[in-house]
């Protein structure tokens, strides 16, 4: 296994960092928190032109055929820059699900358009029960004359308010095994019967309540197979979880850097803040948290890229990074003191995002539980 970034990945990293530092300054990030849409279309178009939106899709579907490792490199830079917008919703949650579950036609139609920035997708999975397991999919899609009628509430759905197509995960059959009887439907975002309300969140990301009120969907809009949606969904969630980790590593790295820089400039008691051992220890702890996060994430990304089994690694990564990124932002706040507590500073951006990312796609406790299972510490009855 070779963790060294190859030459193309180094170039991608440098190009992404340069591009984002120019096109995505913190002023823009803060502006987009207030903005209804949440991202500037011009920036989206430029990213499409760079090929970023199709980086992970195979060439036959309009993408660049990049590996997961390439994607991790890009995501890290996006996390570092706090890039606003529907990249995660459209490319990762929506796009990867289509790639994993869709028919040939669906992949060709939809992925090409996602890659070109022409449509935005999102995945409507979670409900008020706020869980990622199969049993928590309770929104029903009932068969009616060849169509399906979807009724129910989805919650915490990112970018639903601007999505051209919402992939709605619904229950089409009830039984003793919750994983069976789950179907994903492609729903036009503009269809009557969908009611979208934006939630107010800690990170200012555009999470929505999406109410499906007797929404009629033709059978041909099923993504993949009827009742068989769970397996590709689980795979997508694994990939998305790792993608989230890569984003988090980027944010954590940036917090480490700005905090360390600050300790060199700030003078207290007649000397540099960073010359106090306590502060040095904070920075050392941040460094170890960032290094551990980076190594676990990239080990998993490499294995995923090579097609090797890596669920253990992905669970370990999210369990760790969820807590580590949070710790890093907490220490960053402590190092900056009052100035970092004022909203115009960069620290609140990362502090808020770290918490949101911790809670998304399973927090530390959730993934540690999965690690325990992978270690063979079986639950009762399992």
């Amino acid at each position, binding site marked *: 296994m070779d*963790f060294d970034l190859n030459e193309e990945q180094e170039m991608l990293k440098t190009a992404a960092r340069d591009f984002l530092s120019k096109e995505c300054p913190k002023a823009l990030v803060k502006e987009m928190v207030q903005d209804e849409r949440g991202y500037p279309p011009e920036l989206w178009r430029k990213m499409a032109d760079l090929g970023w939106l199709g980086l992970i899709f195979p060439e036959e579907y309009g993408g660049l055929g990049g590996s997961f490792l390439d994607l991790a490199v890009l995501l890290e830079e996006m996390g570092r820059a706090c890039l606003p917008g529907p990249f995660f919703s459209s490319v990762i949650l929506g796009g990867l699900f289509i790639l994993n579950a869709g028919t040939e036609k669906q992949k060709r139609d939809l992925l090409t358009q996602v890659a070109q920035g022409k449509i935005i997708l999102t995945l409507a999975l979670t409900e008020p029960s706020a869980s990622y397991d199969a049993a928590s999919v309770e929104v029903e899609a009932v068969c009616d004359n060849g169509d399906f009628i979807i009724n129910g509430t989805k919650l915490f759905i990112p970018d639903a308010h601007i999505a051209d197509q919402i992939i709605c995960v619904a229950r089409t059959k009830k039984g003793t095994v919750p994983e069976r009887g789950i179907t994903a439907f492609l729903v036009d975002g503009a269809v009557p019967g969908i009611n979208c309300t934006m939630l107010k969140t800690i990170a200012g990301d555009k999470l929505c309540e999406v109410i499906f009120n007797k929404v009629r969907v033709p059978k041909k809009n099923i993504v993949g197979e009827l009742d068989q949606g769970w397996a590709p969904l689980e795979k997508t969630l694994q990939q998305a979880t790792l993608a989230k980790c890569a984003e988090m590593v980027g944010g954590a790295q940036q917090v480490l850097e700005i905090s360390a820089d600050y*300790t060199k400039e700030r003078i207290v008691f007649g000397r540099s803040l960073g*010359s106090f051992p306590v502060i040095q*220890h904070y920075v*050392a702890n941040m460094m170890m948290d960032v290094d551990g996060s980076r190594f*676990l994430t990239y080990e998993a990304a490499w294995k995923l890229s090579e097609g090797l089994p890596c669920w253990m690694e992905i669970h370990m990564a999210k369990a760790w990074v969820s807590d580590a990124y949070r710790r890093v932002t907490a220490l960053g706040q402590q190092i900056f003191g009052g100035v970092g507590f004022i909203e115009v500073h960069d620290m609140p951006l990362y502090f808020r995002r770290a918490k949101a990312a911790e809670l998304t796609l399973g927090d530390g406790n959730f993934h540690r539980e999965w*690690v325990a299972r992978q270690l063979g*510490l*079986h639950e009762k009855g399992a």
Partner: protein
Amino acid sequence: MRILDFKVDAPEPVDTDTEEGRKFRQEVRDLLDKELTPEVVQARELQRDRPYDISPLAREFYRKLAAKGWLTPRAPRWPKEYGGVERSDEEQRILFEEFAARGIAGGTEYGGIQGPVIMRHGSEEMKREYLPKIARGEIGFSLGYTEPNAGTDLASLEMRAVRDGDDYVINGQKVYGTGAHYATHHWLAARTDPDAPKHRGISLFIVDLASPGITIRPLWTMGGEQTNEVFYDDVRVPVSNRVGEENQGWSYIREALGVERVVMGGVPVVGGRSVLDDLIDYAKETERGGRPLAEDPSVRQSLAQLAIENRIRRLFNYRTGWLMRKGIIPEVEAAIAKVWGNELDQRIGHIGTQIMGLYGQLEPDSKWVPLDGRVEHRYLFTVHLSYGGGSHELMRSLIATRGMGLPREPR
């Protein structure tokens, strides 16, 4: 920035072995499975992963490795005229992996702690005298740094070496000399210029521990180990035994400490199984309150977290190993691996005893003791790891100042 720049070899063999590689790996495994017996493993010195501080029992084991040429660092970084051995990249990687999995990594890479320093700074005479013996495992070093008044603040050491013709005459006392009672040589730091600033008046010596005037007195630790006080009473040491330049010893010691910390961060496995592996099995097999420990949510969370932190430890060690193989002594990365690994060891000991409940307090030779008392022993033994080999307070400051450029504390 060094944090971003890393490359590791595969943590597990992932079918990237060639045909020859596969055969070689099997050969290595066969020998290790045969020779790393429970008795050999019992010699707790092995757990400390210092192949060149060797007890008689461990020494016998290492002699078998040496006979295969597997203890020897490889040429060309360790030149053949000093005992280096030709070995392919693949064989080197396989040796490292198989040894690391059993907690005996280190020696094959770079000749223990003293090898690299002698290689870089020793005279030609010293290199030819000592390096082949180190490579063959014929020499065991005990470290002679710490004194009653000089631990973390090592530069305050007082042991005095006075030049007298072709010798130095050395007087003073060292403490916590682990392994001095069975080592063949002392790796000794002494002051040669009392008028210079502290760091600039220290020299480094190789001393034959059989020299007249040396007295060794045992000290027993809470971790059940023997360590020692070592007294020097007008001990004569030839000038040719001085490592490198007079009064340059501090820089050599810093290098040696870097190498030592690379080794200290390693996974303390005994015969291929770590205490954590044992705890996971224990949780699966043991019932408390009518159900397996493995079903207790707090036990599941604790063991999962330790497993994750252990995985990070492994990756940190691969990083330091990679940097060492590039010929770099990675001061910051070694400090990170040491702090991480040793504090993790402490957590494993503490949480392990907790999981075992009342059984966690039983000593290794008690009736009813589970897992041979290894967890209770770890709990006691690991206490000294957060100051031994470099206090973690100092380590964290080193990491931040040399790793991220923070300014040093004014003295």
